[in-house]
């Protein structure tokens, strides 16, 4: 008997395939290729000169450093918030739970404006902090504050479902086997939420690195001191230094893709370790 061509039973394959690739092609692939073409036109010296300039290096240091600190803060407090939301009852919990998503829904500019006003010298927080000698607005500390706000939901929302999925049975089993609550936490609960925690941390980190709107207000944008990498790109664009902007953008993209890869690998590792899909 002759082999028949593979026929697709469910309808709409051709249409959905065509539509998807057309859309992605026009909106994503075409512009991205413009970026790569531009990159290729740079000479190695040009590229290196921009990418390794003192100003750029200072920007990397600020962006990656502040993002790391903010992501760590979110890892710790995000875990706490998720824990409290899943395991305890208190008045207003539903409201708090809904508000955790605020940084997702709020435009970054609004966050930027508000945080700056709060932490400026005569702001609600600023006045006390400045009196104590801590300057938040127009400093790298302010950048950290803004990035913490932005990344807040990531850890909470990735850890929450995992915490909820932990069967009370498992903890009860640990208790009957003689484990103290702390031991149950460190040996039973924490290992199972660790992949989600790492995942949330990485997501918050990735978001923080690329963040622009909420940071440009509070940072003060002083080159070499409080200039983040995205702002550097914007400045170069405003000066029509397309080549310079592209070069820095490539560095950022490389970092983003590395993180994206890490996230994907983490998710695959998580799925393999805890593959208990309901039947």
């Amino acid at each position, binding site marked *: *008997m*002759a*082999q*028949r061509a*593979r*026929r697709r*039973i469910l309808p709409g394959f051709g249409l959905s395939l065509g539509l998807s690739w057309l859309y992605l092609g026009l909106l994503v692939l075409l512009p991205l290729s413009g970026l790569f073409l531009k990159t290729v036109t740079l000479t190695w010296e040009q590229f290196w000169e921009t990418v390794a300039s003192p100003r750029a290096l200072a920007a990397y240091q600020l962006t990656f450093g502040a993002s790391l600190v903010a992501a760590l803060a979110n890892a710790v407090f995000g875990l706490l918030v998720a824990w409290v939301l899943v395991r305890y009852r208190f008045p207003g919990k539903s409201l708090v739970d809904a508000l955790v998503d605020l940084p997702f829904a709020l435009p970054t500019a609004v966050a930027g404006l508000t945080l700056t006003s709060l932490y400026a010298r005569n702001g609600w927080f600023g006045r006390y902090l400045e009196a104590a000698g801590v300057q938040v607005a127009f400093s790298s500390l302010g950048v950290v504050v803004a990035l913490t706000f932005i990344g807040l939901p990531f850890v909470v929302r990735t850890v929450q479902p995992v915490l909820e999925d932990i069967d009370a049975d498992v903890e009860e089993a640990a208790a009957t086997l003689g484990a103290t609550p702390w031991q149950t936490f460190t040996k039973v609960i924490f290992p199972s939420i660790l992949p989600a925690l790492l995942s949330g941390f990485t997501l918050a980190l990735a978001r923080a690195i690329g963040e622009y709107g909420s940071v440009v207000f509070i940072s003060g944008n002083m080159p070499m001191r409080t200039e983040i990498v995205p702002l550097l790109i914007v400045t170069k664009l405003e000066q029509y230094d397309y080549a310079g902007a592209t070069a820095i953008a490539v560095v950022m993209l490389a970092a983003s893709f590395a993180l994206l890869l890490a996230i994907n690998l983490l998710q695959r590792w998580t799925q393999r370790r805890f593959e208990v899909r309901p039947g």
Partner: protein
Amino acid sequence: MSVAVEQLTKQFTAGGSPAVSEVSFRAPAGAITTLLGPSGAGKSTILRIIAGLEAPDAGTVLIDGVDCTNLSAQKRSIGVVFQSYALFRHMTVRENIAFGLNVRKLPRPEAEARVDEMLKLVQLEELGQRYPGQLSGGQRQRVAFARALAIRPKLLLLDEPFGALDTRVRVELREWLHELHKQTGVTTLLVTHDQEEALEISQHVVIMEAGRVAQAGPPAEIYDRPATPFVASFVGGTSVLNGHIHEGRAQVGSLIVAAPKSAREGEAVRAYVRPHDIKLMKTASGNGGNSAAPGRVERLKPVGGYVKVLLKLPTGDTVTVEVPRTEFDQLGVAEGDAVHADVRTANVFVGDFSI
């Protein structure tokens, strides 16, 4: 409307073993035909190919003699009942049943009348406005039947329709299906791994094993004259006794049983014996030339109306004998006792015993 498949072959993973391999059989018009076999035997795949939900790599599907292999599922006018019911959860029962009619743009009054007819047929008249989420499993499955039958299909395909239900509901629906079929007379192809279901309600049975047809025929024939060791052990409980050919007969321990004519002297045989084809006796009284085999009672398992007696024979084989309660009480046997087993009939196979 009969349905036949010829040389159907389907492979899902390149390089792996085929799910279905050169399967051919015919389901007679107006009858219930069952595709029976263990999980993975390929039965559901064949059903889906007949429904048009899978395309075979090779072979043909003939509905009423017409080649439908390349016809799309939408045009085959076949009713399908899925194991998971696949009811449209956001539509009411009435809307579910009317779906196929709306697709065919049947005028509203006619469609409503047909829906009423179907609801009456499956005895769910009061539940027309409910949603599937508000029904029990058995009720949902009946809605699925009504939906499939509403379009007056030429053929009804049932993919393990009762698999997701409790035993009691399953048995009830089995009887209900039998009655339904009597009323509608639609050619039905049923896929199941439950052999009791197959034997009870079908007129024709096709046994499948690892993607191939092992045997096809009326249920009684499958049960009494299994064609292969696999069929013998899959359909109906069975005990296996080892022996060899001696003077034209199978000698299984001290039992002598008729053997296939093609058997050669000394050849190894296996006898497949049904649990109720063995009679237990306290003493080895002569029984028309067949001496009963001695054995020791290893375990007694009372199961409701009969008792399963596990008997160990001197040859090392273990046989399970099913004895009705009344007979067992009269026998008065306990664990550890010595008894004699008389095999009335057995299916004897020589040669390749691979199951």
